[in-house]
């Protein structure tokens, strides 16, 4: 199409000479639209993008490769033969090589008696011809060349005791201990109306709780219930009623027994005395062959302990729990509590005079809990990093980033203190785990997960499509016209 020529002989002015119709001005207007749009893109990007702060990924990975190490020094005292330490070291090294997984994190060194200073990681074994005896961090043992292998076995059990990890409750700085006296049906008569629990707790539980106070704090609560039906009917056996091992797994009737409320998030360990209804006594636990087992107590892993108490037939109609029964119930509860918290046993041949725990046991527990917590914190941190990498819509706010950083700092401090103080190592490891879990479960990370990009396009398209099409069309037309003008200008020269 030839360029438009202003017709001659008209009184109208040529519009292309007008100021606002100048080619330059029109192109300026179009360009300014584009400039505004392009300048607005960063702003739009900022306001519509999800806040994703960068996590210290490399620090997390390097931290995860770290391994907590506890130095353990064993000093032999009062020994005749100077070669014994070296042979004991050899025996210990053999055991460590045989099961490296159990000894993970421990550097065991046996040294001679000449070390005068006693650092915190020092354990003493004194030669003595009496029976093996443990107290605090000392062990007296008949050390001879022939008993050295037995000593190494005893030390293995003292330092890395075997535990049932499925039974032990997960570590928490604070537990709630909920003691419950359950009457299956008080209205059926001969029920237990109450118990003198404060006294029983102060006698049987307080010593344990005091010894364990370096690991956990405890909140104690108790209640009595007068109607707590079972979810199944016990089997009728020759002399009374029995619970089969299969029924034990469904013994706790959570729907009917309101065992504890949810006023705090601390994990709860339940201790239940179950009084069968007067019409179902005696109630016994049956073994797999169907004969009554001598024990009336059982442990639910990570949940708590249950004792079935059958009141004697000559009991009054409605009486509190007798003192003798209370004592036996609470000593069983104490054993169950130690099992649930993973407190290790002493080797079978070693005696002790410690009221509850020796230093050997406590240290072994502290080391294991610290190792568990450190591994848990490292795994959680790795999971956070992986999750954030995988899900691109996931927001990462300042609180998540801060928790991850604090958790890493706590891990650093834990490594720093691992050779000096067990207590502060455990404290830092628990702190690291708590912070890492808090970051992992931060509710802010779920905020925009379910707002897909398609929705945004559905909202933007009606506006942008209809506005952008004329702009693009005009821009293309002007660029064409401009190139043509240049070509013509070049041809005219």
């Amino acid at each position, binding site marked *: 199409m030839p360029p*438009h020529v*202003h*017709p001659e002989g*008209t009184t*109208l002015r*040529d*519009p*292309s000479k*007008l100021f606002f*119709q100048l080619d330059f001005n*029109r192109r300026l*207007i*179009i360009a300014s*639209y584009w400039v505004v749009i392009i300048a607005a893109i960063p702003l739009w990007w900022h306001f519509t993008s999800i806040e994703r702060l960068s996590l210290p990924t490399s620090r997390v990975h390097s931290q995860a490769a770290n391994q907590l190490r506890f130095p353990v020094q064993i000093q032999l005292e009062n020994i005749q033969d100077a070669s014994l330490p070296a042979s004991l070291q050899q025996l210990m090294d053999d055991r460590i090589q045989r099961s490296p997984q159990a000894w993970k994190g421990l550097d065991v060194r046996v040294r001679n008696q000449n070390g005068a200073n006693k650092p915190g990681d020092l354990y003493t074994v004194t030669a003595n011809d009496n029976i093996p005896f443990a107290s605090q961090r000392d062990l007296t043992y008949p050390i001879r060349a022939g008993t050295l292998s037995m000593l190494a076995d005893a030390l293995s059990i003292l330092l890395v005791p075997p535990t049932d990890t499925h039974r032990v409750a997960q570590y928490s700085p604070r537990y709630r201990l909920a003691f419950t006296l359950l009457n299956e*049906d*008080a*209205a059926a*008569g001969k*029920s237990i*109306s*109450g118990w003198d*629990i*404060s006294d029983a*707790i102060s006698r049987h539980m307080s010593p344990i709780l005091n010894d364990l106070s370096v690991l956990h704090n405890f*909140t*104690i*609560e*108790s*209640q*009595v*219930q*007068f*109607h707590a039906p079972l979810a199944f009917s016990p089997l009728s056996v020759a002399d009374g009623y029995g619970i089969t091992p299969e029924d034990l797994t469904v013994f706790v009737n959570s729907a009917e027994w*309101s065992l*504890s*409320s*949810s*006023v*705090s998030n601390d994990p709860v360990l339940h201790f239940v005395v179950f009084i069968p209804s007067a019409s179902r006594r005696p109630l016994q636990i049956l073994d797999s062959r169907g004969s009554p087992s001598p024990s009336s107590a059982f442990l639910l892993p990570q949940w708590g302990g249950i004792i079935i108490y059958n009141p004697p037939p000559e009991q*009054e*109609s*409605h*009486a*509190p729990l007798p003192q003798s029964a209370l004592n036996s119930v609470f000593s069983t509860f104490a054993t169950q509590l130690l099992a649930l918290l993973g407190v290790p046993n002493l080797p079978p041949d070693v005696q002790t005079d410690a009221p509850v725990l020796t230093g050997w046991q406590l240290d072994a527990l502290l080391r294991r809990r610290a190792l568990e917590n450190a591994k848990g914190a490292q795994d959680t941190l790795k999971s956070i990093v992986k999750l954030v990498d995988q899900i691109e819509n996931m927001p990462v706010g300042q609180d998540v980033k801060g928790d991850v950083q604090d958790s890493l700092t706590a891990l650093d401090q834990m490594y720093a203190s691992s050779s000096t103080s067990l207590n502060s190592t455990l404290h830092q490891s628990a702190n690291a785990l708590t912070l890492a879990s808090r970051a992992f479960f931060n509710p802010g990370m779920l905020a925009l997960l379910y707002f897909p990009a398609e929705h945004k396009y*559905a*909202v933007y398209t*009606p*506006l942008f499509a*209809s*506005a952008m099409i*004329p*702009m693009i069309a*005009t821009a293309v037309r002007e660029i064409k016209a401009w190139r043509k003008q240049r070509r013509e200008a070049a041809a005219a020269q």
Partner: protein
Amino acid sequence: MRKSRFLWALCLPAACLSQSFSGETFNEELAIRALPDGKVASRFEFSTLLHGASPRNPRNLSSEDDSQHYTLFPLALGQILRQYAVTELHLTLNAGKWNYDRWGYPDEPDVATGASMWTWMAEGSPVPRHSVDARWRDLRNALAGLFCASLASLDEQRTTSPVLAFVPQGALPAWPQTEPHALRHASLPSEHVCTENLTPFLKLLPCKSRAGLARLLNPHRLLDADWHGMGLHVSWLPEEGVRVRLTFQSVTDPLRAGNTRDWSLSSLFDRKIEAACPVAASSRVVVALPTDESYSIRPEPSFVGQGRGIFDLAAQPLPLDVGLHWPTAFQYATLPTAQSPLSVRRTLHGSSQDHSTLAVSIKNAGPAAVRVAYLETLPWIVHLYLHTLELSVDGVPRADLLRDLSYTAPVPHGRAAALEAVLELPPNSTVSLRLGVGRAFLQYGEHPPDAQRGWELPAAVVVVLPEHPGNDSQRRVYTSALLVDPATPDFSMPYNVIIFSCSLVAFIFGSVFNGLTRRFIVVAAREPGLQAE
């Protein structure tokens, strides 16, 4: 035989001892009375007293609390009370409207429709999460979890602190260096009591619903009643201890089933009392006996006096099925006689979506002038125009009847409004109060589910003020809830709205852009006439 009786005599004091050694007592009572219109009102009261206990001082919230050992007191509730240092707590969940004109005053005064809650708590330590408001929020959430009710919706937008209407029922401890106690009150009229609220309620009782009077709490019958409501009341009595009262009231209509007003426990609740709760210190059924008619009651009450027949579960043969029989047929009264001297009616007038009039008429049928406090708590979506307040008696303006007025203005999207007026009601007259009301325009996200239904305004409360201060017995009269419907958008087509408005914006943009960039040219018109020239 003789030996066993001797043993029994020995057991009795032991049983009594065993009930008091733990320092907790549990009493239960069921009161049943026939109402003038042939219906039957029953009230269960389960009261547990923790002897010698006192509420927790909120200043000690940061330090470790004592271990909690309970025998009869519900542990789940005790933990909540200690955790949030609650001195006094009242929670009611009611369904229906209590008809004061026909039924008189209820045995339990809190009969507001829906969920209603008020507490007295002391200001805590300077830690923000121990402040009264933070604890009030956490307490609501904890109780919402305990009772499976949407108490968490009783948020800041519904919370008020009126001065006159809710005086503490127990005592408030005066702790040194602690701020005085503060009241928090909120109500949610749209909440309904249902089985899922009743089940946790029953779990708080020592014998649950398996023995004693609680055996009669049969959800199928109770939730079918004309009116029913449950309540939880915690108060501190300095000489005795902390008392928890769990109450359940219901109004049943025997005339609906048959043409007789005879009732029995099995006809009201479809159950009998089969076993006594062994830990209850007292367990009684109290029946109000008719005064001016012949009747027969079976079985024979353990004790009759003051127009009441009392059945003591310990002395009655079980199962117990109390029943009252009238030989004469029931005559419906043509004109219901007012059973309470005060009668309150509240309505909302006006058809526009932004303005209406709140009209309240309070009738005093008594022969003496009464001074009352009128309390209106409104969500912020409605606001009152105080200058339009009019008081009149039989059409004659009587501004002098207003003795006192306090008003907490609403904060949009934040705080509820509270109007508390002290009125003097002349004898045998009806005072009418009119107030202009404005309605807010709500944001898209602020509408409740089922927005077209409107918002329910909580019941207004009329409290008879005692003539001598210090007399703590308060009579509260609740009005019915009101529905207000604010302007609601069409929620069904948000995408259409987006497309419409985007099209409009695109059209305007296109026009402007076109006008700015259009190229104008002059075209020679080749018309025949011009060509000839």
